[in-house]
């Protein structure tokens, strides 16, 4: 099975429920009055992705660029399978590693060790698979004996290092990233950069949303520009340039 992402006339709406239409009373009253007062609370939809079609094939490193609110993150979440298409289709084939929020599920009260389990289980990694990589994850995070301490004793940088080490330990077919990850102090961030590059090189598709042109330039071999939920530009670079 080849890894691929294919979208056909993809549309994603956010329903915007004001406090009024979220309440049951409003809906009941609306039902009881036969829609007479319906005008005050008709669902307002925000069209975050508007009729988008594209296909991403193996080996492509796609950079998503565009203003704030152009729909980049929504598109990433749709690819991750969180937002289901309202119209059109979106086919994603391959195991996804989503680096949208790397510290998801981690908790200050738990030790570093427990947080590794917590983070990995949310990524869908089986315990047996995790145990094989455990030592390597702890070693890379450079936390040493702190791994047995509650995370509230960590500095912000230390928790990020831990989250980063877990998230990049299990290669996947498709990597989704919202802004390039850079963690830790100068020395660690060099090491992290190398690990992230290796992680991406093991995947066959990367989708990176970023505001930094030089980052996109360095990593990606295809740039999709978004504006108001539409893709307004799609350019591929020469294959050898983006050989990550």
């Amino acid at each position, binding site marked *: 099975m080849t890894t691929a992402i294919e979208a056909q006339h993809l549309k994603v*709406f*956010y329903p915007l*429920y004001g406090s009024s239409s979220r*309440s049951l009373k409003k*809906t009941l009253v609306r039902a009881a009055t036969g829609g007479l007062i319906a005008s005050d609370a008709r669902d307002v939809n925000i069209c975050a992705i508007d009729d988008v079609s594209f296909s991403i094939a193996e080996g492509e490193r796609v950079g998503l660029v565009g203003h704030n609110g152009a729909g980049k993150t929504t598109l990433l979440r749709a690819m*991750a399978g*969180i937002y289901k298409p309202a119209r059109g289709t979106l086919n994603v084939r391959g195991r996804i590693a*989503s680096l949208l929020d790397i510290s998801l599920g981690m908790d200050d009260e738990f030790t570093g060790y427990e947080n590794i389990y917590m983070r990995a289980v*949310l990524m869908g990694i089986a315990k047996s698979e995790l145990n094989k990589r455990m030592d390597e994850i702890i070693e890379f995070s450079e936390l040493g004996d702190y791994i047995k301490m509650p995370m509230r004793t960590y500095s912000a940088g230390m928790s990020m290092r831990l989250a980063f080490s877990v998230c990049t330990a299990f290669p996947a077919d498709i990597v989704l990233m919202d802004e390039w990850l850079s963690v830790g102090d100068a020395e660690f961030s060099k090491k992290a950069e190398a690990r992230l590059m290796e992680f991406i090189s093991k995947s066959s598709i990367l989708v990176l949303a970023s505001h930094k042109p030089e980052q996109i330039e360095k990593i990606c071999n295809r740039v999709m520009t978004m504006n108001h939920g539409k893709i307004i530009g799609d350019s591929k670079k020469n294959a050898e340039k983006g050989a990550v």
Partner: protein
Amino acid sequence: MIEEITAVFKHFQMWSLLGWYDVKHRYRRSLIGPFWITISTGVMVAMIGMMFSKIFKTDVAEFLPHFAVGQIIWLLISTQINDACVTFVQYQSVIKQVPVPLTVHVLRRLWCNFILFLHNFIIVIIVLVLFGRERPLPSWHFIPGLALVLMLLFFLSVILAIVCARFRDVTQIVGVFLQLAYFFTPIFWMKKVLSGKYLLVTELNPCYHMIEVVRAPLLGSAQEGLHGIFIAACIVVSAVMAFGLMKKLRDRVAYWL
């Protein structure tokens, strides 16, 4: 859709670990941890049990086990139903980041509450041993009874979690309803005080059947069969509703949060 059902087995590791961590989290930094709930429930059961047996002029050996077992099952039911309403809201950060079946979050919550129930169950054992000589022997039939209660709670939780994610007011309504249900269910009073048409308060009350299907065998009266049938019927109805809602709305839940 089908993965919402198979998630029970396929994502067992995920919901059991997360549920267990929820229990652990609640009692971090306290010395005896979750046994605080055992102690607080135990003190409450002992004090109220003795006082109300005086008020109702009932034998302590009859009233206290009735109250203790009923109260502890009620705690499981009411906390789970209350928690069910906020399940998706509470775990929204996870729902918005990881595409796992929604039932995983419901199971996580239910598992956490079941573990807390097991802590409270120690009190049931203590009470049954203390009053053991004056009572008939408990029957193992409480185990299938408990399994039925958990199944019903699961389906009810799925329904409530979806509905409350969309209509946040329902959470409050359920809270009020549960408070009332506590007084209309024979927990700190005994069913034998009712007669005639007032018996309907218990006969049509699902909370009563949920409690009794576990309590009756534990207290050694072989009446659990009918309660089991009532609950089984509730399970069928709620399962149909839960599947219907899941099928129609599961793709929308992430947007509501």
